[in-house]
């Protein structure tokens, strides 16, 4: 038995792998420290014994034959290749190692060196990894958000408990299937696919947000707000995406309810403001008007007697003019009130303003058994207005239009087929924004047309005669004019032209 040279032995001790050198009969010539640690034998005990003691029972039987066959010119099973083999610890436990065997060059009789790489450790590492995975899985499942990972093609690679629950599906029903096709509500699939594409194309790890509905197995759609990141491999190639999603269906529903309630309140408030203003004004104005009526009627009575008390009549007439001036003063105050009101001019899309009050106006239409139609030009410049005031004017005009038609129908005693009000917007040739409210009612008689904007002029039994006057003041305060023209083929058309906002707007 020829022992390896000391420098070979020194080399052996330096390697991490277990190294065993044997001769052509399988006897152990060298057994390094790593080998001692791996098998539980001391080198002194191992050297000289047959290497088969390190093998499992099955391998042991064939080992000598393998060696003989190789030495007899047969093919090598292990030599130069390396493979996983099961080996046996001193305590009898079996474990796998990665074995590569080489013939030591120029050794005669031949000596063989076996490197045993401890896959036991690898397994341990794998077990640790597995544990890590399980722990990660737990994290995933504990997460209050839905977590979904897909590959580049949108095939689901990972999904957590929360996602199962929201989707009311099992792991198998989600995994390895196309996320968008399988789990996203049909109408939102395009959005989902686009968001995956966008993420995959994104150069950085910045999360991106989007919102779409998923469809649960029972057909229920849930609204999810997603944040997604692309998963890149070390070369920076996007391998897939990871999505975290929060189910905001209930929250959104509550918000929408609250929003609707607020809108209703706002609408009522706007109407109330107009109504209260009109009531307050009418009360204020009734006082001088009543006094004027009383004084002047008293005068005509006082003058009817054979010898009228002229000083008394003169004094009453004096009072008439005082009261008329008082009424004028009230009107002046109202005008300045409308002008000086905290006007909040903001850049607005006129069509949006109309759409905002559309629901309210439509309910007005239903009250009058009519129909409200919109004809909104898409090519409108923005305007800088106080949205609420403009909406008040619109509501006033639409309300008038419906009343005019229903009065006409009452008078005519028929229900004429066409009974609708049209709100239209269009750009004027000068590039401004014209808003018109037209109806198919009786329109305005020539003499009425002259007076329609005068305060307290009304054709309505219960009108205050202030709606149009206030509306005109509001429009005038916006550097515009409230005008009237006959509608074709018949009816009335009120319109105003708002100047387009000057500043260029993105």
């Amino acid at each position, binding site marked *: 038995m020829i022992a390896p040279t000391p420098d070979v032995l020194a080399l052996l001790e330096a390697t991490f792998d277990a190294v065993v050198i044997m001769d052509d009969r399988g006897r152990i010539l060298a057994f390094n420290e790593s080998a001692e640690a791996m098998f539980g034998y001391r080198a002194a005990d191992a050297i000289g014994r047959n290497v088969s003691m390190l093998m499992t029972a099955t391998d042991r039987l064939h080992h000598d034959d393998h060696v003989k066959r190789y030495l007899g010119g047969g093919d090598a099973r292990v030599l130069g290749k390396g493979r996983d083999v099961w080996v046996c610890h001193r305590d009898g436990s079996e474990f796998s190692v990665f074995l590569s065997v080489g013939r030591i060059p120029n050794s005669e009789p031949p000596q063989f060196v076996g490197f045993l790489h401890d896959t036991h450790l690898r397994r341990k590492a794998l077990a640790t990894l597995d544990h890590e995975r399980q722990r990660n899985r737990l994290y995933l499942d504990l997460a209050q958000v839905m977590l979904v990972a897909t590959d580049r093609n949108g095939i689901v690679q990972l999904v957590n408990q929360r996602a199962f629950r929201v989707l009311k599906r099992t792991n198998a029903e989600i995994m390895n299937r196309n996320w968008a096709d399988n789990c996203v509500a049909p109408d939102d699939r395009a959005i989902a696919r686009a968001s995956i594409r966008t993420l995959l194309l994104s150069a950085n790890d910045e999360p991106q947000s989007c919102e779409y509905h998923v469809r649960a197995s029972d057909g229920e759609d849930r609204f999810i707000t997603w944040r997604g990141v692309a998963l890149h491999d070390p070369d920076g190639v996007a391998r897939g995406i990871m999505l975290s999603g929060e189910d905001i269906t209930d929250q959104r529903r509550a918000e929408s309810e609250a929003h609707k309630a607020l809108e209703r309140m706002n609408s009522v408030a706007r109407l109330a403001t107009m109504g209260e203003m009109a*009531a307050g004004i*009418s*009360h204020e104005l*009734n*006082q*001088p*008007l*009543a*006094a*004027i*009526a*009383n*004084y002047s*009627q*008293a*005068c005509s*009575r*006082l003058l009817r007697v054979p010898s009228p008390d002229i000083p*008394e009549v003169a004094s*009453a007439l004096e*009072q008439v003019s*005082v*009261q008329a001036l*008082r009424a004028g003063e009230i009107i002046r105050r109202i005008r300045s009130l409308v002008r000086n009101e905290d006007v909040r001019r903001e850049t607005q899309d006129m069509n949006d303003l109309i759409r905002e009050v559309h629901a309210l106006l439509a309910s007005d239409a239903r009250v009058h058994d009519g129909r409200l139609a919109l004809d909104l030009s898409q090519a409108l410049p923005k305007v800088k207005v106080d949205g609420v005031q403009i909406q008040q004017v619109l509501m006033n005009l639409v309300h008038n239009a419906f009343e005019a038609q229903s009065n006409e129908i009452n008078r005519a005693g028929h229900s004429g087929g066409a009974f609708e009000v049209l709100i239209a917007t269009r750009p004027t040739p000068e590039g401004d924004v014209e808003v018109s409210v037209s109806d198919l009612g009786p329109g305005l008689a020539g003499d009425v047309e002259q007076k329609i904007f005068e305060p307290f002029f009304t054709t309505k039994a219960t009108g*205050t005669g202030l709606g149009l006057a206030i509306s005109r003041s509001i429009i005038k305060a916006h550097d515009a004019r409230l005008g009237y023209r006959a509608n074709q083929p018949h009816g009335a058309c009120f319109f105003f032209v708002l100047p387009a906002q000057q500043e260029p707007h993105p």
Partner: protein
Amino acid sequence: MKELPQTVFVVDDDDAVRNSLRLLLKSAGFSTEVAASAQEFLSTYDAAQPGCLLLDVHMPGMTGLEMQHQLNVRGAAIPVIFITGHGDIPMAVEAMQHGAFDFLQKPFRDQELLDRVQRALTRDTEYRARLRQTERIRERLASLSPREREVLDLVTQGKANKMVAGDLGVSQRTVEIHRAHVMQKMEAGSLAELVRMMMAVAPPQ
């Protein structure tokens, strides 16, 4: 009995409205008294004064409705015409439910006002006449002896003299004498008139 002259009372906090009403009513020949507030009116008003009241609904301090309530508490039966502005219809309805005679919306035509004032004054006259009538009936009732009152109650229930005699345990002749005294003291010409008098003073159901 001589009637006191009728007065149209005007209560309105607005000077112009109040004074113009006074002039208008005066021009139509009505005697008028004005007050600028409910308190001012209530402090001087004597329920014995016949007339009617033009009352503004909207007044600072005591409103028209509160003043009407005060009058009701005092038992003053003066007819009240409320003057309201636009949109006071619910208030007017409430006023009517509490016994207001009428209401007018400002501004109003003079004839409308004067007609209503005239009707209110007529109602007041009739009411006061009825009031005096029942007072007289009560005075006459008070002059009856206890036995005469018993006879009156029984005959106005529709009982014949014979039944009254049985009920009271006296002779039919005695009943006839009491009954003659009752008719005389009550100044009633017939049994039917006597029954009407008793109904006029009966407490309302």
